[in-house]
């Protein structure tokens, strides 16, 4: 398994797509932080909800809130990048025909797929660490300009480790859904379409949120969607670093699932997609490229 992960690491770390995605992802993080900085320093003093919003932005670019900004970037736009990355990592093996090259040498398909998924998560962990490091660097630069201190308590560092793990955990069901769709369609585009569509439906159009309005079973069903449970986990990351998005956004905390439910639901979805992926990959013919 370790040998396979080492081999997968060479493939993914040398692939131009990985570096392109990472660069765009980090550039967007810098843009987000700089926009928040510009809004914070460039606008006159406000009151009420607007003031709270500006204060929230200010906290988000200072320590320790900058950690939350980085982690919410990972779970926000990062989710889209992660889906593209995962679909590319799995789907290209079909389009290049390299899957048969590997499996003709090592027919243990479960091991191969698990090594690939582990390496994808490892790469996302590295990207998350880089985004936290870059955000921290920006925080160090911007704090004096805003007249703020750069103090980070030991508790913040523990929260940061937990937060990074939580951010990766949040990405897991999307990665596994994308993996399943890519294996099902034997194509990068198929995986990409399903993975991104799910994210768009959940966040962009809010179509699933309509279920809650219907009440009863529908509300329960909505509370069991991936997105709703992930909202709880991402909010925990923000709260851990002193951010309070509910004070500036129409977010009803009482409607969110509990942290325990959120953790369990994400685990169940992840296990389901992993099981389906392994079962499909184990039994399917690997018949030529494409």
């Amino acid at each position, binding site marked *: 398994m370790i*040998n*396979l992960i*080492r*081999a997968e690491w*060479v*493939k993914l770390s*040398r*692939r*131009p797509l990985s570096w392109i995605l990472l660069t765009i992802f980090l550039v967007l993080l810098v843009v987000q932080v700089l926009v928040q900085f510009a809004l914070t320093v460039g606008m006159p003093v406000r009151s009420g909800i607007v003031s709270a919003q500006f204060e929230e932005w200010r906290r988000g670019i200072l320590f320790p809130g900058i950690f939350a900004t980085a982690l919410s970037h990972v779970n926000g736009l990062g989710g889209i990048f992660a889906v593209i990355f995962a679909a590319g990592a799995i789907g290209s093996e079909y389009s*290049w*025909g*390299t899957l*048969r*090259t*590997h*499996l*003709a*040498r*090592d*027919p*243990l398909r479960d091991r191969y797929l698990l090594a690939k998924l582990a390496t994808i998560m490892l790469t996302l962990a590295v990207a998350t660490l880089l985004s936290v490091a870059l955000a921290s660097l920006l925080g160090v630069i911007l704090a004096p300009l805003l007249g703020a201190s750069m103090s980070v308590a030991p508790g913040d560092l523990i929260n940061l480790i937990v937060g990074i793990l939580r951010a990766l955990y949040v990405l897991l069901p999307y990665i596994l859904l994308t993996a399943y769709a890519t294996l099902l369609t034997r194509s990068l585009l198929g995986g990409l379409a399903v993975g991104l569509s799910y994210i768009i439906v959940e966040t962009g159009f809010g179509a699933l949120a309509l279920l809650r309005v219907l009440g009863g079973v529908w509300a329960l069903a909505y509370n069991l969607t991936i997105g709703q449970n992930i909202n709880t986990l991402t909010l925990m990351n923000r709260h851990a670093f002193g951010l309070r998005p509910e004070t500036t956004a129409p977010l009803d905390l009482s409607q969110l699932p509990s942290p325990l439910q959120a953790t369990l639901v994400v685990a169940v979805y992840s296990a389901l997609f992993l099981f389906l992926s392994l079962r499909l990959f184990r*039994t399917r*013919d*690997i*018949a*030529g*490229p494409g």
Partner: protein
Amino acid sequence: MDAVIRTEELTKRFGDRIAVDRINLEVHPGEIFGFLGPNGAGKTTTIGMLLGLIRPTSGRAFVFGCDIQREAAAALREVGAMIEAPAFYPYLSGRDNLRVLARAAGLPDRRVEEVLAQVDLTARARDRFSAYSQGMKQRLGIAAALLHEPRLIMLDEPTNGLDPAGQLEIRNLVRSLSGSGRTVFLCSHLLHEVEQVCQRVAILKQGRIIAQGEVAALLRRGVLVRTIGERERAETLLRSTPWVSRISEYGDAFLIDAPGDRTADINALLTAGGVPVAEIRHYETSLEEFFLEVTAERER
């Protein structure tokens, strides 16, 4: 002698279409076995099943005595394969592509350099795979197949897209692999290629094996005799000699299984027996002629 590859009624259906139909193959240790057939005959599907990439609909396949469905890892431990076009990561160099495979198999980088040298790719090992010519891609595919020093090598159309010099190079490489004690399973639609390097062949057509055996035995060698009339008397005379083992009709002539140096004896025999001879010569079919003959028979 234990067979390196053995199949029992191996069959694969894709929906209503039978790609491989109850084939029984046996490949012996150390031989170069040719697996012949036109494009679409089912060769690659068969290789896919032998490598565990495609699940048979029915029947069984054994590699080194291990059932490929139940003990795939043990069966393929000593198998190296190049299936269809060589498939590698286009953004990695030839060397890095092999390193990926070597790492996955827990092999040292030293082995990568050895196989690169073996297929004469060391000088271009740093170039990206996407920049390789077809011949270099084929050679890299063979290098990958050799990486873990397998005892059985399966090559699917290894000379595809190569110029004559490249084809000769690959044929020599295949011979040298066999010379070092390895078994080679060579899949090809190029009959002359198989004829030149293989000891035994199986011919596949529309998913079925229509001929299998030693190349020398499958190819007809003998004496072709065309007489002017008197066919019955000629046949009687020929059958009376101890060195004629078989006589068959070949158009308006006879094809006689007899040593080529008996041409003069046959001529003397027939002339003395009062049979006028119009043509007599040594005859040898090529694998191509044999292939066309057996495939035509199947179609009739």
